[in-house]
């Protein structure tokens, strides 16, 4: 077992992957007021696309990554267009069930194309382990931390500083008023799904480089963990998703190392329940009354 610092860094690594995924849940919730339960499966699709582009098409890593991210972004837009958009005015239960159905559909498609056997996948991240005193950090973890950091900073700047980012915030607050400003609400929702899915693709790439195995249900666990992270941070809040994800990863890693790996999930959910008891809207969530 490594040092506390090492556990902390590993926790940050997994946590930042959760954070990337959680961002998709929270942004989509903010703008479309729905939980996209198929979001976790985008991670899985990303992993398979990466596998195909790297091992079948033998593309260079950069190209494979670019194709994976683009593929997932387009998939996200398509799912919204065909499955969720027709249900904008439907009761939220109908939307929820559709999202769960979409999740099953993606998993079944992967099962059809690649079958259920896990595929071994060699990490595309070729970075040496770094040693600092008696703390070792794997190359994958290091790259994960750097990549997620870049993604989160870029996203934050995009949302807070650009015209499109302000439009996104305006649409999530008041769609009718946003339309009166000339903002195309459909296009803004598409963009949000694209960004969320692209981030999930990046998360998927980092995830398979860590675990080096791909199967159709691969997205389920990180998906649900990231959902917990988004709720923990306050669903709808972008910084909340980041903090929630990282926090979750660290708690997991520390409790795995020092308490018990069997109890880890119980501890994670325990923390969630505690936070929600004290602050029902999550760490950074707003106690805003939903407008209809």
């Amino acid at each position, binding site marked *: 077992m490594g040092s506390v610092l090492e556990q902390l860094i590993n926790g940050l690594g997994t946590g930042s992957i959760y954070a990337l995924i959680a961002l998709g849940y929270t942004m989509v919730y903010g703008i479309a007021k729905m939980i996209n339960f198929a979001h976790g499966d985008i991670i899985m699709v990303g992993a398979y696309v990466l596998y195909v582009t790297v091992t079948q098409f033998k593309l260079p890593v950069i190209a494979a990554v670019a194709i994976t991210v683009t593929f997932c972004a387009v998939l996200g837009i398509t799912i919204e267009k065909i499955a969720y958009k027709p249900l904008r005015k439907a009761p939220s239960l109908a939307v929820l069930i559709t999202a769960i159905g979409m999740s099953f559909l993606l998993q079944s498609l992967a099962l059809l194309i690649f079958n259920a056997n896990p595929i071994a996948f060699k990490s595309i991240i070729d970075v040496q382990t770094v040693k600092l005193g008696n703390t070792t950090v794997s190359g994958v973890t290091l790259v994960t931390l750097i990549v997620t950091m870049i993604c989160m900073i870029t996203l934050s700047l995009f949302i807070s500083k650009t*015209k499109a980012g*302000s*439009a996104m*915030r*305006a649409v999530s*607050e*008041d769609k*009718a*008023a*946003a*339309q*009166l*400003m*000339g*903002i*195309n*609400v459909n296009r803004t929702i598409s963009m949000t799904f694209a960004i969320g899915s692209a981030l999930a693709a990046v998360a998927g790439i980092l995830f398979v480089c860590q675990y080096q195995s791909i199967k159709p249900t691969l997205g389920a666990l990180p998906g649900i963990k990231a959902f917990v992270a988004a709720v923990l941070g306050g669903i709808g809040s972008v910084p909340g998703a980041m903090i929630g994800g990282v926090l979750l990863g660290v708690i997991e890693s520390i409790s795995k190392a020092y308490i018990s790996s069997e109890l880890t999930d119980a501890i994670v959910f325990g923390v969630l329940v505690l936070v929600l008891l004290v602050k029902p809207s999550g760490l950074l969530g707003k106690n805003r009354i939903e407008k209809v």
Partner: protein
Amino acid sequence: MAMLTIKDLNVYYGVIQAIKGISFEVNEGEVIALIGANGAGKTTILHTITGLITPKAGSIDFEGNDLVKIPAHKIVSLGMAHVPEGRRIFAELTVLENLKMGAYTRSDKKEMENTLEMIYKRFPRLKERKNQIAGTLSGGEQQMLAMGRALMSHPRIILMDEPSMGLSPLFVSEIFDIIREISESGTTVLLVEQNAKKALSIADRAYVLETGNIVLSGDAKELMNDDSVKKAYLGE
């Protein structure tokens, strides 16, 4: 031909008919007041004009464009701005960000900066508070922000839905002064108001709405002296 011509407009919410075959027009440069009691259908009319609601029947001609066929987000760039009921500012954005959203369809940055300066001159409070989160503004300041935001698009016509709602008498006078200024600077105004006295005092013409029908219309000064209007809307 009038700038804005509404013909035989019928609007439903489900099976309930809110607007029952209304026709009216707004000429360029006019201030038109639309008055009527709660639930008469004033907001519904404005929402239908700017595309937030689709009418069951009727046409809305704005300078040759049939607005019924144009999606809501494409209407502001035709030169029509709408200050909605309840202000509907973006509470979590700053004052400046709200104003910039008003200029969303305008791509000329330089021109946007100039308009911003003009708005700040008209609403000095907004300049002082440009980096404040809009949700923390007072009601009157929020109304100014909503108007400033609409003016950022350089509208040729501006639709205002109860701009004086919930404001102190002092603020109400200020808001009406600003509406007069907006009109004098050449922008056509379609004003929905419950404060009929104030609205009629600055309007050229007015329409009186009752449960989805126009029951009275004409010169604003004449309507102010109309007995039925006096009794029903001016509290005399």
